[in-house]
């Protein structure tokens, strides 16, 4: 009887010890700034590399599907190229596509290694980071629309604030009409739709109108197709529409993403700062 009791009390002490150390650790990483940063960064690195392994394995199961998607995208680009060649009257390989002098955007492709869509504020992880030229506050697009904005970057991984995040606002406009507003997600858990706000109510809006990026935010190039309008409503007392937009992009299935590097951002930012100080 006695030895058993002793084992029990030893285990109880161990549990109490672990509990108190756990509380201390929680307090440390919650209320101390520098420790909290180090902790988050370490978690980012560890979970990033775990997610990378998992995604490597999962990747094999969807190779065929991914191949098809890439083929389609390739075909689309090729047809554009041929049309352009036709217009210029040249062979596709002779086309003058050198834009190095005035290149504004550069895309970095990356694999999505982690993705959440079920939270209020959703994030994704990409398997490329600073080494690939990615920095904070760059746009991330997928093959059918916008995915999010880069939020935290370390050497090899990037955390992306998804479009399904209460802080994300995408500057979007109505195709061919030019009126622009901001596209937000209203946290309702439905990842097929987003809401386009700030379009004045005098604008004629038809259901089925297409929505694309406006290019005003310098995160994204203009003219990326985002979705189409499937519902409109003017909230009582408001002078702007609340438009329901069905997305082309299925965020539940994305495997690849492109980070948009905008070479004009530094120049635009400094100009903006100058304006602000006026």
């Amino acid at each position, binding site marked *: 009887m006695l030895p058993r009791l002793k084992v029990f*009390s030893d285990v*109880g*002490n161990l549990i*109490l*010890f672990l509990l*108190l*150390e756990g*509380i*201390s*650790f*929680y*307090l*440390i*990483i*919650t*209320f*101390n700034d*520098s*420790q909290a940063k*180090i*902790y988050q960064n370490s978690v980012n690195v560890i979970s990033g590399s775990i997610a990378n392994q998992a995604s490597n394995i999962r990747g094999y199961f969807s190779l065929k599907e991914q191949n098809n998607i890439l083929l389609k995208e390739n075909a689309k680009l090729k047809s554009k190229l041929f049309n352009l060649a036709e217009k210029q009257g040249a062979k596709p390989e002779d086309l003058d596509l050198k834009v190095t002098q005035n290149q504004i955007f550069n895309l970095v492709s990356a694999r999505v290694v982690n993705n959440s869509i079920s939270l209020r504020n959703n994030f994704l992880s990409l398997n490329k980071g600073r080494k690939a030229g990615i920095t904070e506050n760059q746009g991330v697009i997928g093959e059918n629309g916008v995915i999010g904005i880069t939020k935290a970057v370390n050497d090899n991984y990037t955390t992306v604030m998804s479009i399904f995040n209460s802080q994300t606002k995408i500057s979007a406009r109505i195709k061919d009409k030019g009126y622009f507003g901001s596209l937000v997600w209203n946290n309702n858990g439905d990842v097929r739709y987003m809401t386009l706000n700030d379009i004045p109510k005098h604008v004629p809006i038809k259901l089925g109108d297409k929505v694309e990026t406006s290019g005003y935010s310098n995160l994204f190039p203009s003219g990326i197709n985002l979705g189409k309008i499937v519902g409109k409503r003017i909230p009582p007392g408001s002078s702007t529409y609340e438009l329901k937009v069905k997305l082309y992009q299925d965020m539940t299935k994305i495997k690849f993403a492109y980070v948009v590097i905008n070479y004009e951002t530094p120049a635009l930012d400094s100009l903006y700062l100058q304006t602000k100080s006026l």
Partner: protein
Amino acid sequence: MNLALLNNGTRFVILILLQVIVFNQARIGPLGPYYIDIIIFPLAYLLLPFRTPRELQFLLAFGIGLLVDLSLQSPGLHAGASVFTIAVRPIILRLLEPRGGYDKLHSPTLQRFKWPWFVPFISILSFVHILFYFSMEVFTPLYLGAILIKTLLSWFVSTLFIFLIVIILNPLD
């Protein structure tokens, strides 16, 4: 029993006040990039009587650590270090065990055990506390060198102050 309660209670109060009011303000430095923090409050829980229930030892160490943390605005650092150190105390006690063993009713005080026993007892355990504290403060093994330098500097000064306090206050069971 009541005397032990009174002695330990007073010791906790005095050492917390000393730590918070005097030593937390008396940071020495800078010595290059480093400061010396004087940490003397571990003495309070290190002197708990041998018969104190383990659970109570943990909770008291955690509590006093947290109180000091609150005054330093570093929640969790000293609390974690104190709990870890009180967990290590039985191991050190076993290492230093005198030939006749310990009397359950006693406390590990200078008055009972004299300097040759008391110096390693306090030095080792205050080193454990301070090492744990600075490991958590720096919080990354990348700066192992900084952790060790900070620990050694603070440990040396803190331990001297602890002995000074022991000489002046002469804690009893």
